[in-house]
């Protein structure tokens, strides 16, 4: 008899939890709807009626795009509504946690999907119908990642994100895309395997998968330090792969070069946002001292990213290496293991959301301009193709300059405050602990910021101080310009009103 009552309670709890994760349930339904809608619309679009063939094709694209956009906006609205009741609640028997951090990061994820869709719209790209359900499934995975407090759920949500990402990378079905997708899946599978091994060791040591429970921390603390550190490092491998930190960064340039540009901008932002929250939760759960380890990884990421970017001839590869370096800078915030450090990471993530999306949008618009006809063998994104564009279209040139300055981390852009916060948190941590490695990291990080100026300013330099080829024209349409300005404005705004965003973050 008691068993029955227990079951009723359990069912009630599950129903209640389902109600609370309504944005994800809704997105799951949209995922199915899009796949079914695609099946019917495909038949409609492929009907050959001579005159109206292209209009049929357009309705097919626009309908799927529209459904995705509307549902993403509804999901965003649902997530924002969750802010009003910010009691930290465990869902599904401590599988997920819904706290204000999770809600905030979910809103950021959904926002980045919105920018992805806007980028697709302004660049007038056409994708096969499976594209949109895959984007939705990435969003489901990302949202679950931000809420997960159970190792199994963390693994599963990372895997949903990864599998969708592999497919989206190879989506163009060209030889290059297949190569990028294959590299991504091989490295990704190896990283998840290592992560699973680490998780199983942690489970063996603690007897629980729930990283929020005190048993987890106690179990690790009771195990020998070397053994537990190795299990933790193995688990971290999977997370570091997702944020493309060194030494798990090798896939990044190839994937960024071969994937469709809107997707690349999305990869550079959204999975990192979610994975950083997972790392923050994981760091606060384990009692081991990971300061030196994180410092070394951060140092390696910054150095590899910046020095490799110096030699790049392709803007997409250049930005890929720059995101690796930025990951390193964000990891500095985690090195400190302090409240201020975590806040500075969140600030950095939000700034990088706007800078990366605008950087990829701008180079995409420039590379796909009419008249940029390059031979098959070379890339449209070659850095030489940007010669003189700033003279032809000064407004575009100014936008690029702002974005590049923000990536380099100079005033008057938000990138400056992002780096300043991270470094001041690091300085504070150094004064508290007095560890030499932190001072080294501080000095080396500053040095690298200077080095990064060389390659970030290379593009604006070419745009303004080199002559373009004869007869080049470059015009942006109104909606392209509107989206670019919408993305660049927050970069300036967050410089002048940085404390405004910091206040929001400190309430999390």
């Amino acid at each position, binding site marked *: 008899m008691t068993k029955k009552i227990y079951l009723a309670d*359990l069912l009630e709890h*599950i129903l209640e*939890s389902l109600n609370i994760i309504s944005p994800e349930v809704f997105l*799951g339904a949209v*995922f199915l709807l899009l*796949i079914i809608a695609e099946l019917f619309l495909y038949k409609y679009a492929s009907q050959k009626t001579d005159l109206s063939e292209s209009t049929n094709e357009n309705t097919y694209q626009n309908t799927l795009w529209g459904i995705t956009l509307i549902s993403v906006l509804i999901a965003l609205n649902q997530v924002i509504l969750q802010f009003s009741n910010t009691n930290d609640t465990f*869902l*599904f*028997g401590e*599988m*997920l946690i819904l706290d204000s951090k999770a809600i905030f990061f979910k809103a950021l994820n959904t926002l980045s999907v919105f920018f992805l869709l806007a980028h697709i719209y302004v660049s007038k790209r056409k994708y*096969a119908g*499976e594209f949109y*359900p*895959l984007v939705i*499934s990435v969003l*489901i995975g990302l949202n*679950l990642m931000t809420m997960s407090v*159970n190792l*199994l*759920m963390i693994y*599963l*949500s990372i*895997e*949903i994100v990864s*599998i*969708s990402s*592999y*497919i989206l990378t*190879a989506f163009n*079905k060209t*030889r290059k895309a*297949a190569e990028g*997708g294959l590299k991504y899946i091989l490295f990704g599978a190896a990283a998840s395997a290592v992560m699973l091994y680490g998780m199983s060791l942690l489970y*063996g*040591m603690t007897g629980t998968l729930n990283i929020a429970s005190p048993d987890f921390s106690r179990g690790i603390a009771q*195990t*020998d330090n*070397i*053994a537990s550190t*190795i*299990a933790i490092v193995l688990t971290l491998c999977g997370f570091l792969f997702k944020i493309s930190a060194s030494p798990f960064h090798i896939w990044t340039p190839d994937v960024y070069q071969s994937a469709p540009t809107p997707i690349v901008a999305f990869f550079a932002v959204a999975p990192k946002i979610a994975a950083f929250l997972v790392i923050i939760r994981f760091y606060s759960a384990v009692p081991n001292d990971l300061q030196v380890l994180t410092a070394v990884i951060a140092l390696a990421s910054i150095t590899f990213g910046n020095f490799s970017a110096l030699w790049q001839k392709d803007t997409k590869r250049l930005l890929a290496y720059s995101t690796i370096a930025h990951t390193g800078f964000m990891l500095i915030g985690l090195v400190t293991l302090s409240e201020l450090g975590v806040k500075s990471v969140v600030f950095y993530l939000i700034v990088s959301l706007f800078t990366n999306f605008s950087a990829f949008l701008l180079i995409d618009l420039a590379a796909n301009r009419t008249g940029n006809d390059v031979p098959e063998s070379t890339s449209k994104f070659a850095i030489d193709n940007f010669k003189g564009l700033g003279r032809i279209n000064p407004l575009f040139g100014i936008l690029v300059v702002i974005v590049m300055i923000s990536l380099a981390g100079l005033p008057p852009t938000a990138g400056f405050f992002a780096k300043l916060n991270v470094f001041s948190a690091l300085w504070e941590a150094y004064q508290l602990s007095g560890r030499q490695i932190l001072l080294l990291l501080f000095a080396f990080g500053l040095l690298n910021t200077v080095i990064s100026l060389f390659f970030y300013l290379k593009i604006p330099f070419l745009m303004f101080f080199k002559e373009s080829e004869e007869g080049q024209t470059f015009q942006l349409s109104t909606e392209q310009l509107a989206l670019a300005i919408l993305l660049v404005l927050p970069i300036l705004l967050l410089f002048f009103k940085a404390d405004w965003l910091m206040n929001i973050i400190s309430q999390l």
Partner: protein
Amino acid sequence: MNFWYFLTALTLLSASMVILSKNPIHSVLYLVFTFFCISGHYVLLNAQFLMAVNIVVYAGAIMVLFLFVIMMMDLSKNSPDSKSTLTKLAGAILGGTLLVILIAASRKVDLKDVKPIDAQTGMVEGLGQILYRDYVLPFELVSILFFVAMVGAVMLGKREAGERNF
């Protein structure tokens, strides 16, 4: 316990034969044998259901499919080694270091207070209880994961009319 040692030795031996044998078909057959050995370990760990699933899914379905693919691709000819000696040496050193670290770590783990398990632990009933009660959300999410993978596989594998085949 003696049987455990025998089974472990057999597993390790066949696993290393997977890497060492020159013929890919032999490698696959050794891999199938390794899976059978691992299934034996599952029985010793009182996880009979896992044993059955492992044999049906891995040894049965996946590996046989693998074998067919390898036979169709005709990889049995010995291709020249593409890796340089330096790469091999670096790989061996890295792998060896990792092995030493893992062994050193696992020796440090204290396993004295392992509780004896309930005889019903690995049975289907217990598994079902846990799967549908505590782990109901991950269990349902796996379906999304598999569906995404299926959609992707069909999309990438399907050749549109007039598309280049590489």
